[in-house]
């Protein structure tokens, strides 16, 4: 079965921004196509047009030479176009199976058999009867993929699917995608990760500022050539000096920390012990959903541990709440920018005011000192190169990268002694990642300490002085960054290596 998809002269204009400018592309089944570009390059707009979520202002889409009228997502589905969005389209309070059954014509028994077959075939391990909100990001993604597969798609569009997956999960996904491609499904893979383009895809179209700037075969490309096409300028690669010359002064000492959750879908933490030195970056690797969330929450004081101790410069802080911990000059950057770190519907300066360090004096006698906060916010915007200087802008209009810069800036501008961050570059483009990595290296150089909880191994290996792996709520032995490599990390993360 051959499938041909043709995008012909598609344009979409938003006020103040041309999201797609005369985009023309041709796709054939049997190959995996990459659509590469930075955040804001217009990939997501094109994908939304292909999946019927928005209508183009101009241009047509043809499937097997038939003109498609995609007025709603239903039209895309009925034409066998499957779509895995970057932001999950799942119903958090419904169970996995309910999520799958909602748009299926099959009866529940047939569907369950079908889903179980898919789970088995692609080796996905997901309990069908738990609510989505208890799944990790990686598992949610799998539910999205399964939802497409049950409809036997002709075209499968993946919008940045690996931003939440670990290396092992990514490899599994790639094997599956290659399998789908062999089975005759046309695959369009949207990403800003260059390595993935080279290891997975056959052809690559690069988009920049709404335009397609290049179409080529991946065997003719290499990392640097793709990066230059995507960004239009050269990047300097970050390499942290692994000097190990951080001082022996201990900033944070965690000992015999245990956490037993009442929620059966949370991970219990077992006997966590580590120390963090001044000026050091401690990386914590692991597959998502192995206790990172719980560890972050306990370190930040959002939840309290059942027993064990956390000492900051020798003072016991395990019973303190986040605000009290901030007074010790600890700073936190949670995983979920939109719901945990910032309030999207508030203006930038209001979000800045939300975490008032004791030093900042934003509030006088309970009243809001607007001018002070705005000045402070402007300083953050300029010091951390957020691409706006309008502190009255609602935070929801910032792109992911800029929002993350704002959040980090908010935490760092008071020069904390310790920064704990959780997936700080999740879903960001190369430019933003680069900037945030540089910032993290810089604060280490200033003698501040970092705990970096991340599912991105490259990031961990680049930035950490020492690395530990969390697996099923247990921390591995802490290793010096020199003695680990991606393979060893992968084995530890998968529980395949016991130290």
């Amino acid at each position, binding site marked *: 079965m051959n499938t041909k998809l043709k995008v012909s002269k598609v344009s979409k204009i938003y006020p103040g921004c041309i999201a797609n400018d005369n985009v023309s592309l041709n796709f054939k089944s049997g190959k995996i196509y990459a659509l590469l570009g930075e955040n804001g390059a217009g990939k997501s707009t094109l994908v939304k047009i292909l999946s019927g979520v*928005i209508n183009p202002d101009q241009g047509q889409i043809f499937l097997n030479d038939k003109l498609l009228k995609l007025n709603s997502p239903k039209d895309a589905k009925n034409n066998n176009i499957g779509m895995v969005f970057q932001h*999950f389209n799942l119903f958090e*309070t419904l169970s996995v199976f309910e999520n799958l059954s909602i748009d299926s014509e099959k009866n529940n028994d047939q569907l369950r058999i079908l889903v179980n077959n898919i789970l088995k075939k692609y080796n996905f391990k997901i309990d069908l009867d738990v609510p989505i909100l208890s799944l990790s990001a990686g598992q949610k993604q799998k539910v999205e993929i399964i939802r497409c597969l049950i409809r036997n798609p002709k075209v499968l569009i993946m919008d940045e699917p690996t931003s939440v997956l670990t290396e092992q999960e990514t490899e599994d996904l790639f094997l599956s995608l290659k399998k789908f491609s062999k089975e005759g499904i046309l695959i369009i893979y949207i990403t800003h990760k260059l390595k993935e383009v080279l290891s997975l895809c056959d052809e690559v179209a690069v988009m920049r500022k709404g335009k397609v700037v290049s179409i080529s075969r991946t065997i003719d490309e290499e990392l640097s050539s793709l990066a230059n096409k995507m960004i239009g300028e050269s990047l300097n690669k970050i390499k942290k000096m692994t000097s190990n010359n951080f001082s022996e002064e201990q900033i944070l000492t965690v000992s015999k920390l245990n956490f037993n959750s009442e929620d059966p879908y949370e991970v219990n933490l077992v006997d966590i012990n580590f120390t963090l030195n001044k000026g050091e970056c401690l990386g914590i690797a692991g597959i998502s959903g192995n206790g990172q969330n719980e560890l972050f929450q306990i370190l930040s004081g959002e939840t309290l541990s059942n027993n064990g101790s956390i000492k900051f410069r020798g003072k016991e802080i395990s019973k303190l709440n986040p605000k009290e911990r901030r007074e010790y000059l600890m700073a936190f950057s949670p995983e979920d920018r939109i719901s945990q770190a910032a309030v999207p519907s508030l203006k930038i300066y209001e979000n800045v005011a939300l975490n008032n360090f004791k030093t900042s004096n934003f509030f006088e006698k309970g009243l809001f000192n607007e001018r002070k906060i705005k000045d402070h916010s402007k300083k953050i915007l300029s010091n951390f190169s957020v691409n706006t200087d309008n502190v009255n802008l609602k935070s929801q209009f910032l792109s992911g990268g800029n929002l993350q810069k704002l959040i980090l800036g908010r935490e760092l501008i008071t020069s904390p002694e310790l920064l704990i961050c959780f997936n700080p570059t999740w879903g960001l483009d190369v430019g933003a990642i680069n900037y945030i990595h540089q910032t993290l290296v810089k604060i280490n150089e200033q003698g501040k300490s970092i705990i970096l909880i991340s599912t991105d191994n490259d990031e961990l290996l680049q930035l950490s002085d020492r690395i530990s792996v969390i697996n099923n709520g247990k921390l591995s032995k802490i290793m010096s960054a020199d003695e680990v490599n991606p393979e060893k990390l992968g084995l530890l993360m998968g529980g395949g290596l016991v130290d």
Partner: protein
Amino acid sequence: MNIDINFLGILIGAIMASSVPLILAASGELITERSGVLNLGVEGMMIIGAISGFALMVMTDNLFLAIIGSMLSGLLLSFIFGFLTQSLLTNHVATGLALTIFGIGLSAMIGKDFVGIPGKEFPLLFVNFKEAVPFFGPIFFGHSIVFYFAFLLPFGTSYFLKKTKIGLIVRAVGDSPLSAANQGINVLLVRYCCILYGGAMCGLGGAYLSLIYTPQWIENMTAGRGWIALALVVFATWSPLKVLVGAIIFGGITILQLHMQAMGIRVPVQFLSALPYIMTIVVLVIISRDSRKIKLNTPTSLGQIFYKEK
């Protein structure tokens, strides 16, 4: 002893009858809220249902028409709410409050000519058993068809939400209208249907008051029952069966405290009058403590305006 048991049966029967309008309105509002729409116009829709049911009964002398008409009038009022909030994207809370004020005013105006007109006797079912069976007779028999419908409704609602495809879609829309729209679900249609259904049930709840429970028209006769129904839905954490429990407790304590007042128990009257409200909330809070369940039952998008990107 026999007399006591029969009295107890009659008392329980009366308690159940008094909770019928709450069950109807709360069950309707529950479906509306499960789709993510917060309609605070329950009181207004109930009172409009009450007057239009009564007016139709007087004019046509046909109780069936009166019941249908009351549901249609509740539905019509909720359509105004639906059009404003769903098509014109107005704020749910403000629109709902306006609807209640509008409903109370309009019903008083329509009702001017109907004050003091005696109602018609509503046919009751299984009247023979009421006397024949001790204790259970007055509880289960000799009630109107609306009574039986009301007591089956929470079970039907629960089944609808948990077991049917359409119920699943309603919950999905309430959870995330955006995801639902991306799945090809017509969010507007689903929400309109839920709003209209809620309106019809509120209308029926109002008509129960003016046609069956106290067959006459009195201005403002719903007396805040709409607000109680709204509170029941929230305190019952959007679970139909807990709404039923809450409605019975509220009806029960309302009637018991009246008896206590009549018996001249030396407790301040104000306290006794407040008792139903306090007890209902306390009991519902206690039976709905499970925070995980609350999270799973709460319609995440409740009260949020939804519009489709084009």
